[in-house]
């Protein structure tokens, strides 16, 4: 590898295009979900263990601070789902141009944002 190649690692000097921002958000949501699986397994285990465990997990996930974790995980899942669908769409050769990438990034934000709102409605309404 050419060690003298030009590099620009000062991220503050780079203006990220929208598809880059939706991509990094996809990654962040993925990491959140990776950690979140531990919470989901705790919940699944306790909820199946006993009647008491079930009602404890149910109230933990739907009230107080726990409801924010539930919303956060559902939001990460919703966004990651939508951004993943975008990948599958692009795999089929749709939207591979610069303009197409921009349009799909906007759609990812719209649909991903919708899942975040719906998750909040589901948890708190």
């Amino acid at each position, binding site marked *: 590898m050419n060690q003298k190649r030009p590099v620009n690692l000062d991220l503050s000097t780079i203006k990220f295009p929208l598809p880059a921002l939706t991509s990094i958000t996809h990654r962040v949501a993925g*990491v959140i979900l990776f950690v979140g699986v531990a919470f989901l*397994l705790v919940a699944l285990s306790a909820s*199946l263990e006993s009647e008491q465990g079930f009602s404890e997990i149910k109230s933990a996930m739907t009230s107080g601070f726990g409801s924010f974790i539930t919303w956060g995980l559902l939001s990460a899942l919703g966004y990651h789902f939508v951004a993943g669908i975008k990948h599958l769409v692009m795999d089929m050769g749709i939207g591979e141009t610069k303009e197409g990438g921009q349009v799909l990034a906007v759609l990812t934000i719209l649909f991903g944002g919708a899942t975040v709102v719906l998750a909040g409605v589901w948890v708190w309404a």
Partner: protein
Amino acid sequence: MGVSATNFSRSGVSDWIIQRFSAVVLALYTVFIVGYFVSHSGLTYAEWKEFFSCTAVRVFTLLALISTVAHAWIGMWTISTDYLKAAGIRFVFQTVCFLAMFVYLAWGIEIIWGV
């Protein structure tokens, strides 16, 4: 450079295919489980227990669990090789991820099939 031997399947193409296949499984499972919760708003323990004693649900959950582990490993591996340039830190990060995947898999199977 020269770190490809530590990825999931030693080949970028099969990693790509595994990532897509597991993504589709996880998308279908997500729709299935969210659909179940939405259609059972006053869910009781008895209903929940009965749902997870159904073999088809257990098999689908196991498939989703295996897909999660494979999908997360490829994703975390990609992220670690993109952002963690120091080999030692990257190795520790990947080891922690691998151990977490292993625990998820073993623990998940125990939950799904009971003891």
